[in-house]
């Protein structure tokens, strides 16, 4: 029994160490506070360790991100500041398509560095941001995002589309401010 527990600890630690940067990064992008992110990530690791026997063995990273997301939604979100989903109409906003031909976004995205993307991401309302970072940074499928956030797949689709549109707007504003693109080229 003792050996079994030791093996279980080693197996958990081996897998958890690999995905911890994603867990911590997600926690940091959600809380936007290094101290709170460490608390959140650590609590997620502890919860995962305690529930490791119930892990179905499929996708450990998605399972850990689901735990950290659930913990954040249930425990940390109320304390957070910044744009919230409730301040926007989730269904109402229409995302415009760009024009054919000129594609300033490509210039913009090539010029933008990590810090600007992080800054723009931080301005995206929380539920949209969560969908974008789980999809585009962590590479989770729609089903895994739906499981992690507790919403239907249709809502995940909608939040991703909205989140990316808002992110693109913030990056465009940044690019115009920095002179990477002209106002008339912007969407």
């Amino acid at each position, binding site marked *: 029994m003792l050996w079994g527990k030791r093996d279980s600890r080693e197996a958990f630690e081996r897998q958890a160490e690999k995905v*911890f940067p994603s867990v911590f990064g997600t926690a940091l992008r959600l809380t936007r506070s290094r101290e709170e992110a460490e608390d959140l990530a650590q609590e997620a690791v502890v919860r995962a360790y305690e529930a490791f026997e119930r892990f179905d063995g499929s996708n450990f990273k998605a399972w850990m991100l689901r735990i950290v997301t659930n913990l954040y939604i249930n425990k940390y979100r109320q304390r957070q500041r910044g744009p919230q989903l409730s301040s926007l109409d989730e269904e109402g906003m229409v995302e415009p*398509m*760009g024009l054919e031909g000129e594609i300033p*976004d490509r210039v913009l995205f090539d010029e933008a560095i990590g810090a600007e993307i992080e800054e723009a991401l931080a301005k995206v309302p929380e539920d949209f941001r969560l969908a974008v970072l789980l999809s585009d940074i962590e590479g989770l499928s729609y089903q895994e995002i739906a499981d992690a956030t507790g919403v239907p797949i249709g809502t995940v689709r909608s939040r991703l589309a909205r989140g990316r549109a808002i992110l693109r707007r913030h990056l465009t504003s940044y690019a115009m401010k920095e002179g990477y693109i002209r106002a008339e080229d912007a969407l």
Partner: protein
Amino acid sequence: MIDLELLHAYVDGELSSDERQFVESHLSNDAVAQAEVVRLRSLKSAVSRMAVAEPAAPEWSRCVARLDEIDKARRVEGFVGKYAWGLCVLFFCAILAGGALKRGVSSKVHSGEVAAAAAGIGSGSWLRPPSKPDEKRDWVNESLGAATYAVQPDALQVLAVAKQWRDGHDLTFFRLADDRGELQLVVVSDAGDIDGFERMGSELEAGVINEMNCVSWAAGGYSMLLMAPGRSAAELAQIAATIRVQ
């Protein structure tokens, strides 16, 4: 105009094969939608590529330390759970051993306790011996119990006897008298040394109890204490010699 959410799902590879065919068919005739797909791919790629990877080694180390604590707590809980009965038995034995040890330690007699016991004997507690000499001798011997010492009736007169149980010891008090007045003899069972007494010769110890000089001697687990007001330790030692004759 095509549903934008479909384009996002197309870029994310989340469409069924029918949906994908529908989107691709639409894209072949819609340059605006094609441009949008390019933008979406570019944005998605930029976010995944440029998002800053946070160094998290110190945070991970602290997580491992926390897991160590959890494992340690689990081991303790497991041990306690598994060996609870054994621990209970061990604890019970420790209590018994402690009690036995206390008994052993308490075999030392404190002079203050003897004094307090002597002072606590009320006048109603003293028993008078029978008047007939034979009955009186038997009564005295019985009162002395297993102390195997005898009071010489021609040297000392037994006036009364009282008994007490105190701190694990049987105490028997004799009020004696000789031609100079009264004396008190205390026989203490299961006793060792008398606390605060100093050695006097090979067998006796001397000290003071209730402001009276006192001599004591021990044998067979009993301590005998002889005390009297206004008598020196040497005088008491001489009287003790008559009591100590078996």
